[in-house]
């Protein structure tokens, strides 16, 4: 442990020394966590079909390994000494430090694995939630035409996420980032026979790619100004303080650029459009994508770079941007969820809204709060999606207008779904309550403590109001979804039935998680989670509330209960509420929500279609009619000139040419005489030639 490292650890503990563990031998083999799924994905592609369980066994086994490893690490980290370990394998060096004329001449390409609180938390979430989803998928995907392929890409998906979260440097993070993107492309487009599905896959990939431009540029800015892509090196520079370092000069734009990258994966407004469409994939994919992998990547990135966004003189001035984007996402997408008929889309917009919460928390400087919400959300959102999948499996439709009254047919699904909804709405004492409350507290703290450049008090309070409104909206749309699905009369055609055990057991497991995970971090009572994710190389400068803010907790709960009440009034009682529902169709607003604020339309008609159509065609036309005009024109001109030259040639120069041709002909005619075919005549000539030659030699 070198000097600055020791200093930083002191900083991390905010005054008090923390015993750091290097994780022992367990941490040395963490590289297995990303590598095993990546390798197994290929193994499944090539050998899955021949294996007894057609690839599921290998996939689930892989996730089981990750879940086990992640759980052990998480327990060690939470209840033992915090672990910090960084393993590195050197892959290649580019450039040379000796040139040294400017920064960033030497670039090391490294592969490594990070074992700290943040990573361990992600291993745990991805492993456990992933394992449950994989078990569930065995039942859900039963009989699929590309069953094995599905599990291969599903394993790749989880593996990509694990590569991302295990990355100790920005380049490996980008590798994992893109792997997650490509795996999501494969999974969203799993039913590629339908044009819509492959379009949704492309939309997801391209939207992410747009955001990746930000990530690339941000990573390049940070990496070149620090001279290394390693987080530990970057954190070292940040730990030394702002001042005139190259990093702090680029900090604002680098911060914005990295955040744009995070906006893509974490689907923040206005790059959120791909996530609802990503519902085109099978339901387990949605569950994993919305809970543990992919959308959490953006929040994870901000968490990983958190000191960069939080220390004076660096990107702390971008925080107001982050808060505003998060708040916009939180409220706007929550409202859209109100008008959706497709149950998965309701959940998708709900995810967007919850991601908004996380980003708001990150923007407000509440490191623990944001990650804690990520953590709890992973459990209940996976639960909700799997529950929705169970329902869809039963009624063969995504639309809530085809459901209703399913409470009787599928009790296990009903109860677990209800728990998930309550947790999402933030009902005491479920997981969602604790995490959401912590976010509200953090935003309130931000409102009163942060400088103007960081957003200031007005913004903080404004966002607090939005967050409370969001809690109301969340409770509202979840109530609507529950009532339309499980209460009232059954309106569908298929015969609903409870799902097989392989699908309900994961639901129960996740429901249990949704209940208990909140207890890990009850302000003033437990701080396991805070201590766990806080163990890292450079303190995130978190402000963790010492005790519960009762007023805020009550306000939040009141908002949730209010949402439930309004939802109950509008959607539970049937006949006479129809009028009420009609008033809910407010003219301008309702179509606006139904059309999703016209953002998708703007992207399609304003950007994608023009670029694919007129702009691209113009370029192609330019190629054929302008550039090639010059080329072909030169060619034809040369040929035209050639004709005149030829004409001149025929009349003028050809005299000489014809004469020489004539001479050739004549001499040929003359020599022809000697070609008789008689050997003896030839022999005469040979001897004559010899004589002449010899004579020549003798005489001269």
């Amino acid at each position: 442990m070198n000097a600055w490292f020791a200093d930083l650890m002191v900083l991390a503990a905010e005054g008090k020394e923390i015993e750091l563990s290097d994780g022992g031998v367990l941490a040395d083999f963490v590289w297995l966590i990303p590598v095993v799924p990546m390798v197994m994905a290929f193994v499944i592609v090539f050998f899955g079909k021949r294996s007894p369980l057609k690839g599921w066994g290998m996939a689930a086994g892989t996730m089981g390994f990750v879940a086990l490893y992640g759980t052990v690490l998480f327990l060690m980290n939470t209840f033992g000494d915090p672990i910090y370990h960084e393993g590195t394998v050197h892959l290649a060096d580019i450039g040379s430090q000796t040139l040294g004329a400017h920064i960033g001449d030497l670039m090391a390409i490294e592969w490594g694995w990070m074992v700290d609180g943040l990573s361990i938390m992600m291993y745990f979430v991805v492993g456990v939630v992933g394992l449950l989803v994989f078990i569930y998928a065995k039942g859900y995907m039963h009989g699929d035409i590309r069953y094995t392929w599905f599990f291969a890409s599903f394993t790749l998906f989880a593996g990509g996420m694990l590569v991302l979260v295990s990355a100790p440097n920005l380049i490996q993070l980008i590798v994992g980032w893109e792997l997650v993107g490509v795996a999501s492309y494969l999974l969203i487009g799993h039913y590629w026979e339908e044009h819509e599905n492959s379009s949704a896959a492309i939309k997801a990939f391209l939207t992410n790619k747009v955001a990746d431009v930000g990530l690339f540029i941000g990573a390049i800015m940070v990496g070149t100004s620090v001279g290394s892509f390693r987080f530990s090196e970057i954190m070292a520079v940040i730990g030394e303080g702002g001042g005139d370092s190259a990093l702090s000069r680029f900090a604002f734009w680098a911060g914005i650029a990295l955040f744009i990258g995070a906006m893509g994966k974490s689907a923040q407004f206005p790059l959120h459009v791909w996530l609802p469409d990503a519902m085109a994939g099978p339901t387990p994919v949605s569950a994993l994508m919305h809970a543990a992998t992919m959308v959490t990547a953006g929040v994870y990135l901000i968490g990983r770079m958190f000191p960069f966004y939080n220390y004076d003189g660096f990107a702390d001035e971008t925080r107001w941007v982050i808060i505003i984007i998060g708040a916009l996402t939180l409220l706007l997408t929550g409202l859209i969820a109100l008008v959706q008929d497709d149950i998965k889309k309701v959940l998708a917009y709900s995810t967007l809204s919850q991601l908004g919460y996380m980003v708001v928390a990150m923007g407000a400087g509440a490191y623990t709060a944001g990650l804690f919400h990520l953590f709890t959300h992973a459990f209940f959102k996976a639960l909700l999606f799997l529950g929705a999948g169970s329902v869809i499996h039963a009624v063969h439709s995504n639309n809530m207008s085809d459901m209703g009254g399913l409470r009787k047919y599928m009790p296990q699904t009903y109860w677990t779904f209800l728990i998930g909804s309550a947790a999402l709405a933030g009902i005491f004492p479920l997981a969602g309550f604790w995490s959401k409350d912590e976010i509200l507290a953090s935003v309130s703290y931000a409102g009163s403590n942060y400088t103007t450049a960081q957003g200031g008090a007005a913004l903080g309070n404004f966002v607090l109001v939005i967050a409370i409104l969001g809690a109301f909206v969340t409770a509202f749309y979840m109530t609507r979804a529950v009532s339309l699905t499980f209460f009232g009369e059954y309106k569908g055609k298929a015969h609903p039935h409870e799902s097989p055990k392989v699908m309900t057991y994961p639901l129960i497991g996740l429901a249990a998680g949704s209940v208990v995970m909140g207890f890990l971090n009850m302000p003033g009572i437990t701080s396991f989670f805070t201590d766990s994710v806080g163990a890292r190389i450079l303190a995130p400068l978190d402000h963790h509330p010492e005790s519960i803010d009762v007023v805020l907790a009550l306000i939040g709960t009141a908002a949730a209960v209010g949402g439930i009440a309004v939802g109950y009034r509008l959607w539970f009682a049937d006949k006479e509420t129809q009028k009420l529902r009609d008033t809910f169709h407010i003219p301008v607003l309702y179509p606006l929500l139904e059309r999703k604020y016209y953002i998708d339309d703007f992207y399609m008609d304003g950007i994608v279609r023009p670029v694919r159509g007129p702009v691209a065609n113009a370029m192609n036309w330019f190629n054929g009619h302008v550039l090639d005009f010059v080329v072909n024109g030169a060619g034809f001109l040369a040929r035209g000139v050639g004709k005149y030259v030829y004409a001149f040639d025929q009349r003028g120069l050809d005299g000489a040419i014809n004469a020489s041709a004539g001479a050739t002909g004549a001499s040929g005619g003359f020599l022809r005489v000697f070609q008789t075919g008689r050997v003896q005549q030839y022999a005469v000539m040979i001897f004559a030639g010899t004589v002449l030659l010899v004579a020549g030699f003798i005489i001269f």
Partner: protein
Amino acid sequence: MTIVQFLVLGAAMFSFGVYGVLTRRNAVLVLLSVELMLAAVNINLVAFDRFLADQLAGGQVFALFVIAVAAAEVGIGLAIVLLIFRNRRNANVDDLDLMKL
């Protein structure tokens, strides 16, 4: 005895041989003329051997070799003539004008 007298004799015989090769129509006679040329060569070889008083008798030995090779040549040559004759029913050199097609 001067060396030149043998050489001139050899040259004359050689030239007769050349003349024969160039003018004879019958393939056997062409071969005959070639023999004449070889004999001329032999005269030269032996004459030079004596002229140089070669201890190894190189010229004479070579003359012997020439004789041996000439015998072989005659054998092959006659066989070829025979073959041509068999295919063409005569051994006339004039008819061998495949060189001009």
